[in-house]
């Protein structure tokens, strides 16, 4: 049986209706239901409401279980809504935050080398992954299109910064495969739902390029766990995608 290390789970209340895990305890129950052993967790309410300078809720909640690893949102440093980049990255490392999240649609900014360069310089120096999710708060993943030019720009400009693309769009394989081919520092989740997607990425780019992200509470984690459980790949490949890739990435943060 596969146990997953989930790259994206939202913790806290939502103002959008539907499922939510308001507390760490509730999130751990969801994780148990889907065999998710550990997860990178973000503050769902802060994500929706646009709170970028207070991290106490997520840090406290994740402090209650070693299975919950905190992440925080990042913005273009020019607005000064957050600490200066060097201070922000130092804060992360001091508080056990090993990955940050850029959500350019939900938070309305362009995420490229120009807007995010000063921050990405700091992230790259620490090999800290930038998790990129461009889906809108109420957007359906089927027709979603990430800002491919910006992503390529950023990944090429910071080749030693891991970029994890979440919400690639379900039908964006032609753009995603091009990005994976051009940028070895880019990894992607399983939201490109195409038939044979997992098998094909593994065949052409190896098993180190994919991570599992459940997208809870926006989506049903079973969508992704089921797929990976049945994918036609070897056991070590399945283990890499289910969690070992992410584990290695976080262990490499310096």
């Amino acid at each position, binding site marked *: 049986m596969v146990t997953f290390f989930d790259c994206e789970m939202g913790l806290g209340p939502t103002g959008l209706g539907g499922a939510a895990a308001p507390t760490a305890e509730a999130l751990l129950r969801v994780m148990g239901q889907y065999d998710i052993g550990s997860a990178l967790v973000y503050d769902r309410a802060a994500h929706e409401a646009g709170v970028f300078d207070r991290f106490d809720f997520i840090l406290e909640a994740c402090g209650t279980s070693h299975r919950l690893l905190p992440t925080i949102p990042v913005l273009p440093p020019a607005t000064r809504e957050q600490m200066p980049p060097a201070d922000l990255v130092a804060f992360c490392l001091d508080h056990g935050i090993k990955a940050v999240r850029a959500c350019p649609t939900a938070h309305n900014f362009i995420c490229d080398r120009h807007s995010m360069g000063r921050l990405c310089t700091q992230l790259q120096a620490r090999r800290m992954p930038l998790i990129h999710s461009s889906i809108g708060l109420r957007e359906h993943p089927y027709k979603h299109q990430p800002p491919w030019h910006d992503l390529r720009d950023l990944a090429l400009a910071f080749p030693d910064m891991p970029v994890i693309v979440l919400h690639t769009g379900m039908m964006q394989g032609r753009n995603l495969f091009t990005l994976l081919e051009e940028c070895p520092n880019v990894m992607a989740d399983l939201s490109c739902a195409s038939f044979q997607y997992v098998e094909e990425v593994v065949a052409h780019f190896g098993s180190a390029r994919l991570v599992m992200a459940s997208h809870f509470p926006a*989506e049903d984690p079973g969508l992704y766990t089921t797929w990976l459980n049945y994918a036609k790949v070897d056991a070590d490949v399945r283990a890499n995608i289910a969690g070992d890739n992410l584990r290695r990435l976080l262990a490499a943060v310096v």
Partner: protein
Amino acid sequence: MKTTREYVCAGQPLETPFIDVHGHFGPWPDTFIPHTVDQGRIIAEMDRYGCDMVWMSASNPGYAGDLAAKNDCVFDFAAAYPERIIPYCTLSSHDPQNNVKELKRCLARGPCIGVKMHRYSQPSYTMRSDFMQAILEILAEHRLVYLNHVFENVIDLEWACDKYADVVFIAGHFNPGINDLALSHPNLRDCTCAAMHPDAIGAEVQRLKRSDTMLVGSDFSQVHLGFGLGMIAYGNMAEDDKRNILGNNALRLLERIPWSDTSGVLAGMREDLGIDRK
């Protein structure tokens, strides 16, 4: 016997009936689907999941290329795997005067589950549109299924459910409103396809206190087969409800179709199921 969740967690083929009622087959112009027309890979994926059968319509259904050629692509696949792939005849509101001819041509090719129509990139229509009546009459005569991507006009859908009681109408994507209507229209079903929100289907079973109005669907083989099973396997509902949605409900629909007695497609599954055959 293991539970559905246990099979899924172990990545083992389900051993209970698994019939996906919302599939597609063929090339896609606007997206990259690896090996999209590789029949062997599609059947192999079904085997890994223990999926007995997929009811399939054309890719880009009703809004791309030559409709008859798109249908032949699906019917050829079904002819190669007659117990695994059951074709829909895909029709379109682009060419209403030729739909009857195309439906009759498809029915003459062999077992056909019914008609599938989409909404994208074609003139709007409802179940009361003039051109629809001849189609529904033929489906009623053969006791077949009518699957639509989404029924936009619910009043006309209810009218058609009453008028064509021998047709089973299926809404192509998860919609609790359809389940509400199905309580008063015994020939209406909702397909679970794209029930994206966490445990949406489990919550729906709890709300309805029944599971006989839903049928699993996934848009396979445009997307992977887990896109249907995954939303059900972990759900907060009884094992019998999961099995209803995953296969038993579809099996009951198949059993009422005259060709199912002679084609042999149900032989294996009937053994496992032991369902009440009135």
